[in-house]
C-alpha cells in the first residue's frame, strides 16, 4: 500500500467566496420604470379591483355612461311592482277585478278620468258604497290601500294602472298626489261616490 500522506499544501486554491456585489443602477431604474408603467396602466383601466368593472369599460362611471337613462316622469315599472304587491289581490294582476271582491281597473272610467283629482283620493282614504264601473254596479268597500305610500310611489302606481292593460291615460305626477294629500287635511274616512262626484275632477 502506497499511502500518500495527507498534506495541506499551501499552493491549493482557497474555496471561492461569494462577494457582495451591488445590483447595477440601471437594473433598479428599469424595475422602477416598469413598476410605474404597470401601476399607470392599472390605474387607467383596472377599476381598482372593482368587481363590477369589465373591459371595455375602465371604471364604474365609464360603464354608467352606457346605462339606459331613467324614465322621464313616473316610473311605471316600479308602479307595477307596488300594484302587484298591494292592489292585485283584489283587482287582479290583469286589472280585470274579481266578482264580489273588486271592480275592474282596466277600462274603468274612474281610472281613465282626464283629471285625476278623484282617482288619487280612492287609494288614499278608500271608497265605500255603490259605484258603477264599466256599466256594472258594485256595492262594496275598499280600505285606504295606498295611504302608506309616498307621493312618488303613489304617482308611479297610479301612472301604471292608467297605462297598463290597454289603458291609455296621462301619467299622474307626484305634485298632483301631494296636492290631493294636502287637500285631504288628514281625512281618513272613506269616500262615497256621491262625495267624490261633488269634487272637481
Amino acid at each position: 500500500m502506497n499511502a500518500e500522506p495527507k498534506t495541506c499544501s499551501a499552493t491549493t486554491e482557497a474555496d471561492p467566496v461569494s462577494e457582495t456585489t451591488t445590483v447595477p443602477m440601471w437594473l433598479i431604474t428599469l424595475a422602477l420604470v416598469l413598476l410605474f408603467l404597470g401601476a399607470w396602466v392599472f390605474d387607467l383601466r383596472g377599476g381598482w379591483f372593482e368587481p363590477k368593472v369589465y373591459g371595455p369599460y375602465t371604471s364604474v362611471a365609464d360603464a354608467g355612461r352606457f346605462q339606459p337613462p331613467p324614465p322621464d316622469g313616473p316610473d311605471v315599472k316600479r308602479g307595477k311592482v307596488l300594484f302587484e304587491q298591494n292592489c292585485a289581490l283584489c283587482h287582479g294582476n290583469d286589472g280585470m277585478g274579481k266578482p264580489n271582491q273588486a271592480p275592474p281597473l282596466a277600462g274603468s272610467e274612474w281610472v281613465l278620468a282626464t283629471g285625476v283629482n278623484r282617482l288619487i283620493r280612492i287609494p288614499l282614504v278608500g271608497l265605500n258604497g255603490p259605484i258603477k264601473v264599466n256599466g256594472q254596479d258594485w256595492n262594496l268597500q275598499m280600505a285606504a290601500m295606498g295611504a302608506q305610500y309616498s307621493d312618488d310611489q303613489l304617482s308611479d302606481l297610479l301612472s301604471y294602472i292608467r297605462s297598463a292593460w290597454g289603458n291609455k291615460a296621462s301619467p299622474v305626477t307626484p305634485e298632483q298626489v301631494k296636492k290631493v294629500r294636502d287637500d285631504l287635511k288628514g281625512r281618513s274616512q272613506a269616500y262615497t261616490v256621491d262625495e267624490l262626484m261633488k269634487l272637481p275632477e
Partner: protein
Amino acid sequence: MKSAATIFLAAFLALSASWAAFVLAPQLQLGREPQAKATGTDNLYPVARPGLAKQGAEVYRSLGCVYCHSQQVGQEGVKCEVILTEAGTNASVTLAALAKLNTELGQPQTLAALPKVLMPVADVPTAVPIIKAIAAVGAKAEARVTPVGADISRGWGLRRSVAQDYAYDSPVQPGTRRFGPDLANVGLTKPDVNWHLRHLYAPATEIKGSTMPPYRFLFEKHKRGAKPSPDALQFADEPGFEIVPTDDARALAAYLVSLRADAPLVEAPFTAPTPAAPSTNAPVATNRVASLPYTASELLKLPESSK
C-alpha cells in the same frame, strides 16, 4: 442545511402571496355574486338552471365538451346610437326638427323605414338632449347601446360574459379552446332541444361538413316495434329503426338550451331588443257610461283642478 428555515419561509411567503392574489382575492371579490336585477326590469338574473339542465351540466363536464367549446364571449368596445322609433303624427314638423340636428336627416326618406339609426353618439348622456328635442315634436327616439367585437359579430352573444353569468355554475366551464363555436348563448341561437339531440347523434346531418364527433352512445337504437317510442328522433336514413335519446342526452340538450346570457347588466350594458308587446284582451278605454250620476259633457265642464 443551515438556512433551511429561511428557505422554507421564503418559499412559504412566495406561495402564500400568489395564493392570496390569485385565489383568495378573486374569491372575495366574485365568490358570492348575489343575483342582480337585469337593467330596467325587476327580473333577477341569473336564475338557477332547471333540474334536468343542471344534470346536463355534469354530462357536459364528463364528456369533455369543454375541450372543444368555450363558454365566454369577448367584447372589444361599445357603440351608442340614436335611433328614431316613431315618426310622430306630423312628418314635416319631425323632419324640420331632424334637419336641425343634421341637414341630411331632413330628407323624407329618413322616415321611410323605422326604426332608423339617426347618428352615432359618444354615450347615453349625450344622446338624451337629442332624444328630448325629437320628443318635443311628437316623434320618438331612443339611445341604443350595442357591444362590438369579433365574438359579437359572429353572433355568439349580445354582450360580453361577466362573472354574474356563471353564478349558478359549479364548476364554471368557460373553456379555453374553440375547436367548435362558443356555446355561452347557444340556447338563444338554437333554442330547439330536438335540434341538439339530432346534432349530438349525428352532427353532420345538421351542419354540413361538421367535424364535431358524434355522441351516439348517448342514444339507443331499437328496431321500430308496433308502438314507436314517442321520444324517438326522426331520421330519414334509418328506416325500420328508431333512435331514442337516453336520460343523459336529454339532460345535455336541456343544459344546452339553458345557456343564454341575454340580460343587460350594470357591468355589461346593452339595449335589449324590445320584445313584442304581449297580446292583451283587456278592454281599451271606453266611453263613460250614460247611467252614471254624471255625463261626459258634464264632466268636461268641470275644472281639471289637479291636471
